[in-house]
C-alpha cells in the first residue's frame, strides 16, 4: 500500500514537472490563439487608403483570403513584406491589408517604394476594427475561409517556415 502511494506521488510530481518544463520552454504567451476561431469575421466598413473605395467584411466570401494587419511604424511588418510579395506573385493567395493606427499617406508612400502585396488596404486609423478582431500587436495575419470565417490567426511576421509548414497547409485544406 505504501509503495503505491509513493509511486502515485512520484508520477503526479513528474507530470507537474513535465508540464512546468513545457510551459517554460515550449509555449509563448505572446502568441495567443484568436478568440474568434471558426466564427464569422467581425463586421466592419473601412475606407481604403487610396480613398477610392471601401473594404467590408462582406467581401470575404467565395474563396480563401488572408487579412493582414500592418503599419509603417512596425519593423516586423517590413521584415515579412518580402514573404507577402511572394505569397502574392508565386502562390496567388489574395492578401487584404488593414492599416492599423497609421497615416494612410505614409502607407501609400511606403507601398509605392517597396511594392504592394495587397488587393486592398482598409484604413483603421483609430484601431477600432483591430480591437474587434482582438488585435494586440502588428503584424497579425488572419486566414479567412470561403464562408468568411476566421480559421487561423498568425501572430508576428510570416517567414518561409511558417508559410510552408502552417499557413499553406491550412489554406489548402480549406480550399
Amino acid at each position, binding site marked *: 500500500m505504501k509503495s503505491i502511494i509513493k509511486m502515485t506521488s512520484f508520477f503526479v510530481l513528474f507530470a507537474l514537472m513535465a508540464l512546468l518544463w513545457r510551459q517554460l520552454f515550449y509555449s509563448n*504567451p*505572446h502568441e*495567443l*490563439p*484568436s*478568440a*474568434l476561431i471558426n466564427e464569422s469575421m*467581425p463586421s466592419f466598413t473601412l475606407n481604403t487608403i487610396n480613398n477610392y473605395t471601401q473594404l467590408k467584411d462582406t467581401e470575404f466570401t467565395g474563396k480563401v483570403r488572408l487579412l493582414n494587419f500592418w503599419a509603417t511604424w512596425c519593423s516586423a511588418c517590413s521584415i515579412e513584406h518580402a514573404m507577402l510579395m511572394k505569397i502574392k506573385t508565386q502562390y496567388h493567395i489574395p492578401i487584404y491589408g488593414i492599416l492599423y*493606427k497609421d497615416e494612410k499617406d505614409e502607407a501609400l508612400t511606403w507601398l509605392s517604394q517597396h511594392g504592394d502585396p495587397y488587393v486592398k488596404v482598409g484604413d483603421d486609423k483609430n*484601431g477600432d476594427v483591430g*480591437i*474587434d*478582431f*482582438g488585435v*494586440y*500587436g502588428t503584424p497579425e495575419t488572419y486566414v479567412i475561409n470561403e464562408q468568411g470565417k476566421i480559421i487561423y490567426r498568425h501572430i508576428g511576421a510570416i517567414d518561409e517556415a511558417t508559410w510552408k509548414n502552417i499557413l499553406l497547409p491550412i489554406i489548402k485544406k480549406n480550399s
Partner: protein
Amino acid sequence: MALIMGMALAAYTTSHAQIAYHFRAEPQEQQFNRLINEIRCLVCQNQSLAESSAPLAHDLRQKIYLQVQARKTDAEIKDYLVKRYGEFILLRPLVNKTNFLLWSFPFLGLFFIFIIFYKIIKRNFKVIS
C-alpha cells in the same frame, strides 16, 4: 530597499491612466477603476490596464470608459473583451469546468500536505508513546 520603495509606488498606480477621465458619478468612477485593474494588458502581460502604458492599454481603457459611461455592467464589459481577446485577458480566471483544476489545485495541494503532516505526526506520536 529599492524593491520596497518600488512596491510602495506600485500600490498607488490605480489611477495611472495618463488621461483624466471624467465620470458622471462616483459609482462610474469606481466601476472604471475596478475594471481596469482586473483586465490584463496583452502587450505587457503581467500588468493590468491600469498599470500599463502600452498603446493598446490606452485604447482599451478608452473603450471601457465609453462603456462605463453608457451604463454597461461589469459582466457586459468583460464579455465584450473576452469575446475579442479570449479569457486570458481577465486577470482573474473565470470559474468554469475548464478552469476547475486551476482553481481547486491550491486547495487539493493543501489537503494533500495536511494528510502527509497528519501521518508524520501520528507516526512520531507512536514512537514517543
